[in-house]
């Protein structure tokens, strides 16, 4: 009786997910979005538990407890660890899809029609390759694995050959689902390809890659929907797939690179050429108390945070500086480049965690017109996204990338550990301008010293 209502329960769940994403578009309604998302998921789970096919709840209950026991600590990770956490959860999501696909294959062969088998192949391929790729991304973000891109000869040829073979195996299985010996080989190829896909990708390309993996995890869930003929899975998977895709397109645009370039063109080759010309130019450096003096005289300060701020965990010190300057009547804004950090929106979450109001966080297109009026542009741990060479130097590997126009501010201050170049491996000509002052040191320490000086000076 009750199972005739299950399709309606699923429909309500699908509506909830769509509303959840719609309400997430603005801060004011976003929390409501999460709550309706939870409601949708609860409906989907309850609806499924009511299905008559389920003969025992024992293992399901055990899995619920185990999943909750792991999921809660994963939600309590500090905000600096959010990129790693996201990569890890992509891995779990994709693994679930891959495992269900595998189980369905062995349950249903040889009674699989071609179409179902095609969807199943896609589900397993995407599920398993996203699983290992996300684990690799996690390893790189957590710095268990080297973050530099690792390249070797014929890398792209090898990768393309492997994915080609895997697709061919999937196609063969679609035509002849009874080829049960091929199935484990097919799964293994997907797992290995996932690893090889991430090997040549460096830290700064992570925002694009993590978005792409988000998309794949969603698409494998949608493929599962085709296998099980479940519309809710198709809708939720398609929403997730399109979201990840849009984010990766935004990230690619923000770096003026194409998908193929991110996935197959590791920055490694470029580095070799650029590093050959060591700079002999001089830079002007300043101490934290000199920096504090300049900040005190300003009326508009634009802070440009980057991955270096996240690494140094300097966001709370930055908030203290924001407070002192704001109290002194100085306007402070934050300029956020779309690819600053290691995942989309990384800097916003860190600064929000440090209690900086979100209306002070400005997007690149809005803030660029304000740099000419700014007395000080304070760059904390950002590099390539501020390099003016992207605007005019055709030979530069980052030429054409949209940047923050930091160089147009009256004074530019850069807090940096050393003169080491950034991810792209090129000198930043911003550092050699007459108006630029370099403040060398750890971001957290330097900002802390500036705060002390500002407090004394008042």
């Amino acid at each position: 009786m009750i199972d005739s209502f299950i399709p309606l329960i699923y429909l309500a769940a699908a509506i909830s997910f769509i509303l959840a994403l719609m309400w997430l578009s603005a801060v004011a309604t976003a929390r409501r979005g999460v709550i309706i998302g939870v409601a949708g998921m609860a409906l989907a789970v309850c609806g499924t538990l009511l299905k008559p096919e389920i003969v025992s709840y024992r293992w399901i209950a055990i899995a619920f407890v185990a999943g909750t026991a792991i999921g809660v600590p994963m939600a309590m990770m500090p905000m600096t660890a959010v990129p790693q956490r996201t990569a890890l959860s992509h891995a779990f999501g994709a693994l679930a899809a891959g495992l269900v696909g595998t189980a369905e294959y062995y349950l249903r062969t040889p009674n699989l029609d071609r179409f179902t088998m095609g969807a199943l192949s896609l589900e397993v391929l995407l599920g398993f390759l996203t699983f290992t790729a996300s684990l690799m991304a996690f390893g790189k973000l957590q710095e268990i694995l080297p973050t530099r891109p690792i390249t070797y000869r014929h890398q792209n040829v090898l990768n393309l050959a492997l994915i080609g073979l895997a697709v061919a195996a999937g196609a063969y299985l679609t035509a002849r689902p009874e080829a049960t010996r091929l199935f484990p080989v097919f799964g293994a190829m997907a797992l290995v390809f996932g690893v090889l896909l991430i090997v040549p990708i460096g830290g700064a390309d992570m925002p694009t890659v993590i978005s792409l993996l988000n998309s794949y995890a969603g698409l494998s869930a949608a493929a599962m929907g085709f296998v099980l003929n479940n519309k809710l899975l198709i809708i939720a998977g398609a929403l997730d797939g399109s979201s990840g895709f849009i984010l990766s397109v935004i990230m690619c645009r923000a770096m003026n690179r194409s998908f193929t370039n991110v996935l197959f063109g590791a920055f490694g080759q470029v580095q070799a050429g650029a590093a050959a010309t060591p700079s002999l130019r001089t830079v002007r450096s300043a101490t934290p108390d000199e920096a504090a003096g300049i900040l005190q005289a300003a009326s508009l300060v634009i802070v440009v945070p980057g991955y270096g701020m996240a690494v140094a965990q300097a966001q709370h010190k930055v908030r203290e500086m924001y407070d002192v300057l704001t109290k002194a009547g100085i306007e402070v804004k934050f300029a956020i480049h779309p690819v600053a950090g290691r995942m989309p929106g990384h800097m916003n979450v860190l600064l929000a965690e440090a209690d900086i109001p979100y209306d002070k966080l400005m997007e690149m297109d809005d803030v660029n017109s304000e740099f000419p009026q700014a007395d000080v542009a304070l760059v904390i741990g950002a590099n390539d996204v501020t390099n003016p060479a992207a605007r005019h130097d055709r030979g530069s590997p980052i030429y054409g990338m949209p940047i923050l126009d930091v160089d147009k501010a009256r004074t530019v201050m850069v807090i940096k550990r050393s003169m080491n170049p950034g991810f792209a491996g090129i000198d930043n000509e911003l550092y050699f301008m007459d108006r630029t002052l370099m403040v060398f040191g750890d971001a957290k320490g330097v900002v802390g010293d500036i705060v002390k000086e500002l407090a004394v000076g008042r």
Partner: protein
Amino acid sequence: MSTDLELGLYIFVLATFLGFQVIRRVSPLLHTPLMSLTNAISAIAVVGSILVAGEQKTTLSTVLGTLAVTCSMINIVGGYLITYRMLRMFRKSGKDKS
């Protein structure tokens, strides 16, 4: 082509277009919570996982299903919780954290 497949493809295409329209309007400010929320939503794979684990047709399928339910549950609980935690941090100037 079966009706199921045809219907499924229509739903997939329409949902993808809807996804593009909805996601495009999300402010870059909220891109990280967006990703953790879609991550939680893609844990909808829990539906298939529960069926495989609960049908108990073979030992292999029960083991794989149980693992899959665990993975999905991690993402459901973890994904929604962290999204909510993040969103609670965002506040406008002049207002206290609620």
